[in-house]
């Protein structure tokens, strides 16, 4: 971590660059908002297809508590699924690296598991885990771990064997080799998967909420759909977008801080 800080460029120009970037983003957002509102009025688009942005925002502001609670609840489920899925994914990758037989026996099963439409056994997850936060987090976990395993494994295997031999000749234990060399080298690849996992875990949380729940963005979406309330659907979509973008940005930020030496692309 200290190495990461030392390697980061001087603070002042960075802050200025950041401010400019944020300014640009805000401007772009405002432009999109104006275009949304303007185009709907200009072309007289039926609210059934696209309601005015102001109407959508008014719907959110009419019951801000519901959207805030849904946001927090879905965020919690997403986070639990993401963290456990990420950790499990990396752990499995390490286990696969260490034990080839295990890898060859289990990896194909993992591939098959990813072809199962998760929504099909949502009812089972509720049976097994009850109507808890965990049931949703499990679905998020299920969608998250596999991409992380795949990429972490690629990263772990790409370590130069000569470097491992070198560390071993200095008397490093397998554990030290793993934590000091292999895992750091696998980090850039792993983060590529983690960024994908950020959106997948959100998908898992939202789908999980379709199996009977009171709070959450998935619940709001479902309720709006069955009441044919398009404004409410857009409101829930907007809040989901906020959550999705925010979470993705947080993971990308973490990536920039941790993988300062060689972020992909």
């Amino acid at each position, binding site marked *: 971590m200290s190495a990461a800080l030392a390697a980061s460029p001087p603070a002042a120009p960075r802050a200025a660059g950041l401010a400019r970037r944020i300014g640009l983003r805000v401007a772009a957002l405002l432009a999109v908002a104006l275009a949304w509102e303007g185009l709907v009025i200009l072309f007289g688009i039926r609210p*059934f297809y696209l309601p005015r942005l102001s109407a959508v925002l008014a*719907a959110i502001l009419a*019951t801000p*508590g*519901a959207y805030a609670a849904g946001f927090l609840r879905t965020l919690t489920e997403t986070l639990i699924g993401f963290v456990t899925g990420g950790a499990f994914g990396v752990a499995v990758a390490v286990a696969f690296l260490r034990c080839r037989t295990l890898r060859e026996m289990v990896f194909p099963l993992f591939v098959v598991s990813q072809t199962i439409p998760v*929504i099909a056994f*949502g*009812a089972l997850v*509720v*049976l097994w885990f*009850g*109507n808890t936060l965990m049931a949703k987090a499990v679905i998020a976990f299920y969608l998250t771990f596999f991409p992380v395993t795949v990429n972490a494994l690629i990263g772990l295997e790409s370590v130069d064997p000569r470097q491992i031999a070198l560390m071993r000749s200095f008397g490093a234990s397998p554990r030290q080799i793993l934590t000091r060399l292999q895992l750091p080298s696998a980090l850039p690849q792993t983060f590529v998967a983690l960024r994908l996992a950020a959106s997948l875990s959100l998908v898992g949380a939202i789908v999980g909420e*379709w*199996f*009977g*729940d*009171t709070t959450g963005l998935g*619940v*709001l979406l*479902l*309720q*709006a*759909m*069955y*009441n*044919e*309330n398009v404004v*409410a659907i857009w*409101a829930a979509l907007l809040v989901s977008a906020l959550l999705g973008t925010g979470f993705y940005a947080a993971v990308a930020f973490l990536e920039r801080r941790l993988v300062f030496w060689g972020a992909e692309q």
Partner: protein
Amino acid sequence: MLKRRHLLAALAAVMLAGPAAAAEPVKASLRLKWLPQAQFAGFYVAAQKGYYKAEGIDLTINPGGPNLLAENLVATGADTFGLSGGSDSVLAARDKGLPVVCIGVSHQVTPFVFVTRKDGAVKTLQDFKGRTVTTWFTGANHVLNAILAKEGIQPGEVKIQPQQVSVTPFVDGAVDVATATYYNELYAIQSRMGKETLRTFVAEDYGVTFPRDTLIVSETTLKDKPELVKGFLRASIRGWRDAFADPKAAVDTVMAIAPTLDRAHQEFMLAEVKRLMTAGAAKEKGLFAIDPAAIAKAHDLLLQAKVIGKPVDLTSAFESRPLDALSSADRQL
């Protein structure tokens, strides 16, 4: 098998010891058939006013959703009580060997109608022939087939399609006849097309009744915890009584849980649900009364439609005793 028996014995011991050991409320849950809305107002009111607590029950209300079946969750013990689909889903569950028992019927009469445009081509049931009719393939389709059969119409003569999610195809005229619950779809259709423009076909007019929204419990709970079942029924009826007496406050309670709902629609829903819940057998016997004649009719209909493979023993599938054990003051509105 042996292990399971041990487990059950241990469970039973815990259950028996439970209430005696302390006056601590018994944990229980109610699984609804759908997302929170005024259709379930009475339960939410009872919970909010502490009626379940007063019966020594710490009740959690779990909403339903698409792809969830209350019978399944109650049979496995994931939930204690369920407000499930209806007589159809209870019978199907019994037919499949699920150990669930119906202890009360909420909607005494068929809660849905078949609706068409007044100025359209469909004036009578005979006109269904050759038309596109959408319905739910979760019970309503059997009612449709049954009333068509009474008019001598074969299912193949009508284009029957699944209906889900939206009434827009009907409003837009792509569908000739749609199925609508009094409290949801009919409201949506009426508010978009106007009440006068519609013609409805009511199952009861053709001698078919399909009681829906059934309260269910597992055989184990019914046997081992009769007091819990009775307490649950008593508190639920109290909640519904309050909800009917003060609908505005009841809708407030529901909307505190699901604030994005439309208030006007929820008030309409509660009024319709009241009508459905207080019709038929409930008029004399009170809320949740089980009408054996109506159940037997629904059973025969489902047997004919081959939804259930063999006759189901109705006396073990529908159990009135917990309800009958309540004092008449507790049952009347």
